[in-house]
């Protein structure tokens, strides 16, 4: 075999193996969709695929459930959290990396300890705090704790990006008469754009899928987010797996679609060194 033929063969084999592994890897999602597309008669068949398929389950669950409102709750909480995290973390990173305020390194190290705190140890005190604030069943009761937990990670990444940026740019801005706020807005933020995109997408994913705190803070049906409603549907549709898995598919779909749309920018931020610590 010529070297070229051998390398082509190897590439084909590797692709084949990757596709087989991927086939197994995707089985849970394929299974979910497949049950959602079944008629009641096939719903309990122990098979990955059945035929024929029907869209009745999707029509039923969309008609019978306020999925739009639940989706909106998730969207409000997530977008607000992401906006706060990006704003607050970039301001803080700017103070540390560019302004080099006295004491900012100490603050930075202190805030970093948040990354070592498991959420499991925070739910009880946060639940009591939010009850005292009267913030149970409110958006703000989730948004601010999520933001506080999210800021440290974003701040680390943005700070390391700012430190790698050429300092002459900030000098030039100063000479041109920019004040701190203008330098932050017109020089620093555009410079770290890939990192901002990365942080935004990651925070969006984490917030959208957060379960533990949402379970405790949101008890009213009309406030619930997409991650905590599947449990109630599993009771509601116990005898009707087709409907259950149709609604689960609909719940999972928005974030999957969003990720597919933004994955290129996400990975670009990652490869640009967003995660070099």
């Amino acid at each position, binding site marked *: 075999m010529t070297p070229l033929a051998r390398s082509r063969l190897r590439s084909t084999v*590797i692709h084949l193996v*990757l596709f087989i592994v*991927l086939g197994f*890897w*995707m089985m849970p*999602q394929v299974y*979910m969709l497949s049950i959602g597309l079944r008629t009641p008669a096939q719903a309990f*068949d*122990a098979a990955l695929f059945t035929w024929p398929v029907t869209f009745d389950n999707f029509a039923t669950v969309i008609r019978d459930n306020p999925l739009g409102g639940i989706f909106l709750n998730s969207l409000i909480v997530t977008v607000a959290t992401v906006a706060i995290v990006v*704003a*607050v973390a970039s301001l*803080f990173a700017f*103070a540390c990396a560019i302004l080099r*305020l*006295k004491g900012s390194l100490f603050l930075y190290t*202190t*805030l970093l*300890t948040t*990354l*070592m*705190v*498991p959420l*499991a*140890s*925070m*739910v*009880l*005190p946060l*639940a*009591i*705090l939010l009850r005292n604030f009267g913030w149970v069943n409110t958006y703000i009761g989730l948004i*601010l*704790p999520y933001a*506080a937990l999210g*800021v440290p990670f974003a701040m*680390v*990444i943005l700070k390391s990006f700012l430190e790698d940026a050429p300092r002459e740019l900030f000098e030039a801005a100063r000479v041109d008469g*920019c*004040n*701190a706020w*203008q*330098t*932050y807005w017109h020089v620093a933020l555009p410079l770290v754009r890939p990192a901002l995109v990365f942080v935004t997408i990651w925070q969006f*994913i984490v917030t959208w*899928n957060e*379960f533990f705190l949402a*379970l405790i803070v949101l008890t009213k049906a009309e406030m619930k987010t997409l991650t*905590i*409603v*599947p*449990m109630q549907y*599993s009771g509601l549709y116990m005898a009707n797996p087709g409907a259950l898995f149709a609604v689960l598919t609909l719940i*999972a779909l928005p974030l*999957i679609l969003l990720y597919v749309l933004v994955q*290129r920018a996400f*990975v670009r931020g*990652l*490869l640009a060194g967003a*995660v070099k*610590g």
Partner: protein
Amino acid sequence: MRAEAVRAGPAAAIERRPASRTSTLYLFALPATLLFVVFIAYPILWVAGQSFYVRSGSGTSSFAGLANYVTVLGDPTFWIVVRNMLLWGVITIPVQMLIGGVLAYFIERHTHALRGFFRTMFFLPVVTSVSVISLVWVQIYAPYYGIAQEYLKHVGFVMMTSPIGDPKMAIYALVIVNIWQWTGFSMLMYIAGIANLPSEVLDAARVDGARGWRLAMHVIVPMLAPATKSLLLLGVIGTLQTFPIVHLMTGGGPNRASEVFGTFIFKQSFVLGDTGSGAALSVIVLVVALVLSLLQIVTLGARLTPAGKERA
């Protein structure tokens, strides 16, 4: 804020101007500090304080010293939790690294046109809602109509009940779900590491005759050490905050066999309303996390963020 910042100038701190003029610059650091104080530091101090109090039937709290800790440590469930957490971390972390690393290696170094496709597809479980994933896996594991038992029969693996209903197997069945969900994350961290490997080093190694298996094991694996250390650190913290998969799939059962710190704290605090022992448990988890993290940071030089490459 804007007007005040205007007066101060960007490099005020660098030029060491009088403190009165730089003080407005602290507004940049204020929001993050406030969020930290109110939603992280204060709750932690509160829970630490509360762990020394017990609440009597009439609703008043009284100081109880270490009573809550004694109660918690004397509870057999606590030791089941410790065992489960150890198993969880010891299995999940290396397996995810291994599968994620191997996938990353082949995707990064041997695919071109389909690289983006593979990267995205293997990452999808990470972005799929964990509550959806949990219910899907309950169905997969189910007896009679679940596909796991149906298909495993053909390779001689026969189960009579759902593995999550069996006290001996439940925790392993949950670990599998967790590995499946988070391997894409390890893969992506390693992809960042591999993509950022300096090509001169790889070329030099190739000139020296290292290729294939030897190149991977002796050159690439050692150079990915920063990513590996970060994954270890994140894995330990992730293990300690395990909750949704267990809560949704077994509720810590059967007979508390799959209980983890998250579900244990949840039950003590919110189901039984015993905030004293809930607080003591929270403090224990917190201390374990801090000690293990600091230990890794000091001994391994691990970092708290997923690391792709060494800092230049």
